[in-house]
């Protein structure tokens, strides 16, 4: 979206009256043989840690990135600890045991992969650095103009400040998790044609988990070393209700290699091919194919220090009514309750800083 806005800004800013336009375009098809992609990280928080192996596909919406199944994945540190990760169903995802190896700041971690075809890949030894604490997290109300209209959308921009350590070469990545209590643990569609539905109440207290799964929010201290990194944007809280918005903000300390990698990935996904865009570059990570050094490997295995702070955003000061999401409908007499299952989208466990 940012890229689209940027396109508009550039086009409009240059020539206020000229109509620019974006059309779909079918490029000539080119392809290369599928290469291994590695994603995974070890942190200083309790595990389990996950490594995901996939293959590159042709650059098209119709192609599929295949999972790399049946590989042997070994995580080892420089203190002599090592653990072989177990493949999870349906394959391609490998995980450490609960209570298994845990990351410790100051140690170096290496990932070794042997594919079913016998090719061996290894990451560079990544140093796990502890993350400095977030000194302040805050939200500011802002009505955002809706692109190309005169209407505005209410919301709160969330920022954090952090004190950067004196040593240069600190790199950060930000992630956030939102928990929202919910009364409904299942939705039953009564009529597919009309869309009529009803909800089932949760048997226990239950929270819905919301994250940005494709955000790449990284920063470095190259411009502010030793000072406060201020107004680091985290996310925008939507005005979907007047209830307090519960947020956990995670500051991750990543290595220079990981920072460069994510920054380049972000650049590649936002590049609009314009005359003023940095030209695209090959984005290889920190893994090498040992059995065939000429074979490229993509992705990054990182060792990350993590600190977390909560933020409760008061949403009662916005003008107008909130954008209401789908209301829950509970029938009378009450239906039997539904179990709040622990998954990446929902949990019965009370969030750490939750206040009723």
């Amino acid at each position, binding site marked *: 979206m940012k890229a689209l806005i*940027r*396109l*508009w*800004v550039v*086009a*409009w*800013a*240059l*020539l*206020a*009256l*000229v*109509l*620019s336009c*974006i*059309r779909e*375009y079918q*490029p000539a098809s080119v*392809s*290369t043989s599928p290469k291994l*992609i590695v*994603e995974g990280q070890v942190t200083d928080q309790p595990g389990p840690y996950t490594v995901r192996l*996939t293959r*590159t*596909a042709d*650059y*098209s*919406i119709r*192609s599929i*990135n295949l999972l790399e199944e049946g590989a042997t994945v070994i995580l080892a540190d420089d203190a002599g600890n090592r653990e072989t990760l177990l493949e999870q169903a349906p394959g391609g995802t490998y995980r450490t045991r609960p209570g298994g190896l845990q990351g410790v700041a100051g140690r170096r971690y290496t990932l070794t992969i042997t594919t079913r075809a016998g090719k061996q890949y290894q990451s560079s030894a990544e140093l796990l650095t502890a993350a400095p604490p977030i000194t302040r997290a805050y939200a500011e109300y802002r009505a955002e*103009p809706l*692109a*190309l209209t*005169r209407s505005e959308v209410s919301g709160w921009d969330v920022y954090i400040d952090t004190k950067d350590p004196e040593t240069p070469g600190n790199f950060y990545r930000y992630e956030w998790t939102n928990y929202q209590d919910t009364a409904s643990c299942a939705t039953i569609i009564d009529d597919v044609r009309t869309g009529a539905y009803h909800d089932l109440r949760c048997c226990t207290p239950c929270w819905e988990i919301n994250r940005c*799964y*494709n955000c790449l929010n990284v*920063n470095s201290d*190259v*411009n*502010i*070393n030793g000072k*406060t*990194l201020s*107004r680091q944007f985290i996310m925008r809280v939507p005005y979907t209700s007047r209830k307090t918005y519960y947020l956990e903000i995670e500051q991750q300390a990543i290595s220079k290699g990981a920072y*460069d990698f994510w920054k380049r*990935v972000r650049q*590649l*996904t936002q*590049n609009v*091919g314009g*005359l*003023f*865009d940095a*030209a*695209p*570059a*090959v*984005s290889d990570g920190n893994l090498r194919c040992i059995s065939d050094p000429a074979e490229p490997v*993509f*992705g990054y295995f990182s060792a990350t220090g993590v600190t977390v702070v909560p933020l409760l955003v008061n949403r009662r000061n916005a003008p107008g009514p909130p954008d209401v999401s789908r209301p829950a409908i509970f029938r009378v007499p009450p239906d039997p309750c539904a179990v709040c299952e622990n998954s990446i989208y929902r949990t019965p466990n009370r969030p750490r800083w939750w206040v009723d």
Partner: protein
Amino acid sequence: MRLLYVLSVLACLFTEAVAQPKNATAYSATGYVRDAKTGKPIQGVNIVVINVSKGYVTAKDGFYVVTMPAGNYVLKFTHVGYRPRYDTISLQKLLFREVFMEDDAKDLEEVVVTSETPDRNVRKVEIGVSQLSIRSIRRIPPLMGEVDVVRSLLLLPGVTTVGEGAPGFNVRGGSADQNLVLFDDAPVFNSSHLMGFFSVFNPDVVRDVTLNRGGVAAGYGGRASSVLDVKIKEPDAEKWSLNGGIGLISNRLGVEGPIIKKKLSFLAAARASFNDFLFKLAPANLRGTKANFYDLTTKIKFQPSEQHTITLTGYVSTDVFKLASDSLSGQEINASSTQFDYQTTNGVLRWNYFIGRQLNLATSVILSRYRANLSSPDSANAFDLRSGIWHRQIKTDLTYTPGDNHQWQAGLSAIDYLVQPNTRTPGPFSNVLPVDLAREQAYELAAYVQDEWKVNTAVSVLVGLRYSALLNRGPATVRTYLENGPREDETVSSAQTYEAGTVYHRSGGLEPRLSLRWSVGEGRSIKAGYSRLRQYIQQVTNTTAALPTSRWHLSDVYTKPQIADQWSLGYFRNTADNAIEASGEIYYKRIANAIDYRDGAELQLAEAVETQIVQGRGEAYGFEALLRKNKGRWTGFTAYTYARTFLTIDSPFPVERVNSGRAYPANYDKPHTLNALATYRPTAWFSLSLNFTYSTGRPITQPYARARINGVYVPIYVDRNQQRIPDYHRLDFSMTFEQNPLKKKRNQSSWVFSIYNVYARKNAYSIFYRLNPRSFSDAYKLSIFATAFPSLTYNFRF
């Protein structure tokens, strides 16, 4: 006083006539050629003795000498912008004749995009030189009503651009920073307003524009591809006048006239845009956008006598461009808006001393400063990133014309460069760290000599030799890198510091130049040229087009000077009394130490540029053909260019290679270009022009595969510049209504109506790759000017 001078000149001529007793029957006709309206001397008027095929050219002060055996002759005087004039003389003794030439604005027949006099393209020695008068530039349908010098160059063969609205232009396979752009002798480091849409030259003050793309004369140097020489007109020495125009983008106002009649005259012209109100009407997310520019050109001419002319040119150009985002800043700093300010300030003091009819000495002191500033206002993250170039030059050129067959020229030049790469200053409450990159300082010295030698009536050669050198001086710190690794911050083995003023590195060498013309018959000639050009200052960037804040960098220990060798050969043919011109030229060019960037380069704040750029070899070749009709109610031309440019960048270390060391097309490699311009002028007060342009799309890099990382589809690139955006074509149209110039009126005005992109083609500005689950397309095309765009401009002159 004047009479005395004329007498002394006559006396000189007598002495000369006496000194040549063997040629006793030869006499001279001599005098000045002047503008009929203003009385101003005209330099470079071609004088042809009809039926004898002998040619002469007037000197800087309009003086001419034609020496012939006694007899009756017809002299033909021609110059671009003036109506040709015939003069019948009976040469029995020394004749002194003052010749007045009339402006050709009233003529129905006109020369469009002309190379000076009608047969000059066949007769002149240089190859690959095009001159455009401002009148011909005005006939080209303008974009948004803005008459534009640089845009008009794009119609010439061999000149291309990377995109509509891109800053700069590319000449014969050279990058945009390989063009030396001179505005009355002062170099212009950024020739565009509004990030590239319009050029910085106010059309009201431009006299003519010359582009040297082939045989660059030895007097020019410092850039590897071409020289664009934009000349400001001389202020009117006879009467005061006011001129101006009102357009959609900018408004112009100029004044000129004599302070002391015929001695001291003055010219000032300003141009400014007021576009902010347009953005106020725009959608809310663009209301913070600002895009404004202005430029001011002044020229003072002082002519105390016929021998001395002193001119002082001043020029200021400023742009302010504010975007409501941090998208283009290239800085990893959180910002709600980004503002670009950039400014060119030039001053030229020039003294022309006409020592005698054989000797002329021109000396100039040139100051040129370019400053670019990038800033963000947010208090905690406020910063101000400044960069700049200071160019201080002194140069002198001596012309010696001992006779009809030789014209010698020699000169010296010294440039003092100061390049301030980037200095970042935090705001008062800002957490951003200050950065101050080391200044780069150097002297560029040059000396040259050249001779235009008429070997016989058929063959002329222009032979020149230039020596140039760059002396880098301290304060500086020069790194030494480990020999068995690539140049990176991590592979520095030691660093040597030099004190202020110490010359720590020298580079330089000879630059031979040669042009040859061989007339193979009436209106037919073959020309050949060779030139070597050295470039010591370059703009380093990893974007397709350079931003106004892109970094300039002097050659040094690690960045070797770019050296371009060019060979060209052409055939020129004029028929039907020069009404039809045809020409074809081929060229081959080799560039040593061509520059490109490494994968993932970060240039803006890099302490050592050599860790981000790579150098290799460039190769360019092409064919240019031109067919032109100069006379009649319909005039116009068609130009076709085939041009290729490849770069090869290899190194023992993979990170210093591009495309694994194989040759790849440069960003501006566009094989086919076809341009056509037709003008219909049925009456003196109305004209209509059509302009068509076609070119192959520029190269782009297409992803070969996709990875899914962190839930996002990431494109995987393998090699640079292997695909192209779709071909570009466009038709423009313009109509000019003028007052009938035959009815003498003091006040003149004209209306220009134009349509850009008549058939509303959605040309690709860029192609970008984005996988969107809601669409079945893998890529998108962005078009700007995607519709027919009309505009109206009003011009006046009192």
